[in-house]
């Protein structure tokens, strides 16, 4: 039987950290003592200096914090700076070298899983596998809404995961793939900040209510491809474009529609044994103590039924949709989300 563990990603608190309201230590204390989470997830590039080659001083400080707060190190979120230089993309050799450095750093920090951000090329895996095994670090690709199943680069990566069939290679699904309702914080933000028209917003919500999403409707290849195609004057028949009344007010919203998906959980069926970590996206906790868009009971029941025994990690993103001048309530929201997750976990395991 699997045992699902709770986790909080410090990504959730980026604004607190950036503005100096909370230090890394404050956040670890919050995750441990207030949230009572089993594990923590970090973006080394966000809250540690000098990554992927931090100083000994940084490593020592990290060890001190880990000793003090005793959190499981669930996952380190890794990026690949292919755009390091303006005049060229990094070569394969440079990319492989960077990911190997990340693996070594993750090991020294105490992580056993790294999440490779969406769109990391599939060819990175095999040449990095030896370093992953040696350092006992799993490489898992993020499967994110708008960039997920059906997107060629992601499908290539998934095929490579299946081909390599290694315990050191896997996936990190993001629950934004499973929005049963369109996030109303996004709609509210676009309405108030850009003046997005009501009819368009109603249409977007109705699409999700009818059990589909814009990713499906456009039969396209995802969020970025839609954006790029728009630049070339191409159009998609999602029904949203015809409801645009004023592009300056409506197009930002339209651009965001395919960044959320409404997929059946069964899309994960072929990859169950490769799920190494799970991002539990949080847009908005409702007054009744649930996430507005995502049915976490449905997801947790599915994971439990499939004997998943990894972490489920709260990743708050309502910060992007907090109205200007309003405080970002990330701590409050994360706390409520963790209570919600734990309540379900207590029911099912």
């Amino acid at each position, binding site marked *: 039987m699997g045992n699902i563990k709770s986790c909080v990603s410090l*990504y959730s608190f*980026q604004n607190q*950290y*950036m503005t*100096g309201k909370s230090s890394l230590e404050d956040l670890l204390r919050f995750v441990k003592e207030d949230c009572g989470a089993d594990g923590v997830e970090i*973006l080394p*590039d*966000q*809250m540690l*200096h*000098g*990554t992927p080659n931090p100083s000994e001083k940084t490593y020592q400080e990290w060890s001190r914090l880990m000793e003090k707060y005793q959190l499981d190190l669930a996952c380190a979120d890794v*990026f*690949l*700076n*292919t*755009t*390091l*230089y*303006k*005049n060229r993309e990094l070569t394969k050799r440079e990319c492989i070298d960077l990911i190997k450095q990340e693996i070594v750093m993750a090991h020294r920090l105490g992580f056993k899983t790294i999440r490779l*951000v*969406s*769109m*990391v090329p599939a060819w990175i895996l095999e040449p990095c596998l030896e370093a992953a095994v040696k350092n006992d670090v799993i490489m898992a690709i993020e499967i994110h809404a708008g*960039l997920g199943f059906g997107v060629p680069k992601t499908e290539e990566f998934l095929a490579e995961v299946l081909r390599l069939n290694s315990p050191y290679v896997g996936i990190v699904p993001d629950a934004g793939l499973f929005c049963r309702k369109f996030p109303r914080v996004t709609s509210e933000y676009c309405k108030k900040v850009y003046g997005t028209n009501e009819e368009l917003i109603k249409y977007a919500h109705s699409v999700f209510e009818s059990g589909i999403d814009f990713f499906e409707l456009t039969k396209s290849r995802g969020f*970025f491809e839609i*954006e*790029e195609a728009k630049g070339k004057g191409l159009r998609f028949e999602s029904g949203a474009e015809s409801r645009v009344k004023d592009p300056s007010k409506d197009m930002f919203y339209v651009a965001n529609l395919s960044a959320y998906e409404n997929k059946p959980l069964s899309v994960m069926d072929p990859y169950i044994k490769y799920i190494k970590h799970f991002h539990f996206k949080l847009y908005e906790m409702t007054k009744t103590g649930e996430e507005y868009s995502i049915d976490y009971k449905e997801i947790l029941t599915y994971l439990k039924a499939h004997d998943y025994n990894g972490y489920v990690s709260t990743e708050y993103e309502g910060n*992007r949709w907090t109205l*200007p001048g309003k405080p970002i309530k990330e701590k409050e929201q994360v706390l409520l989300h963790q209570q919600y997750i734990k309540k379900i976990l207590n029911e099912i395991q």
Partner: protein
Amino acid sequence: MFDTNVFIEDTCKNVLKNNQVIGYEMQTHITYYRGIPLSMINYVKVKADGVEVPRENIRFTADHIDWFTLDEMETVALIKWEFGVPATVRVLQDGGLSKGTHDVQLTVCTRTAYIPVPLEGVMTRSVVI
């Protein structure tokens, strides 16, 4: 996106060197949610009272140790702009900004790891010198 990270309030001031005002500077956070090498800064632009500052008059530091022109910065792959650490953008301009109120606009644009479009943030502040 990330507009609110740009141009930290109350940080714009004239810069004195050897009793001469050599220009003005302001602080800003990164238009991203993680630290990146300086070479990934796509561009920085400053407009004062609607007039764009020539690119060659802009200097940038992420740590007050090394200062770079924007051209130089394109190859700075080993020094990072850390998330949560304000960088300083300096405009070289004899006499700096005159006494009074000015509209100063700062634009910061970074290339990211996976988003094909660079992330630009823009903020205009009314600055009193």
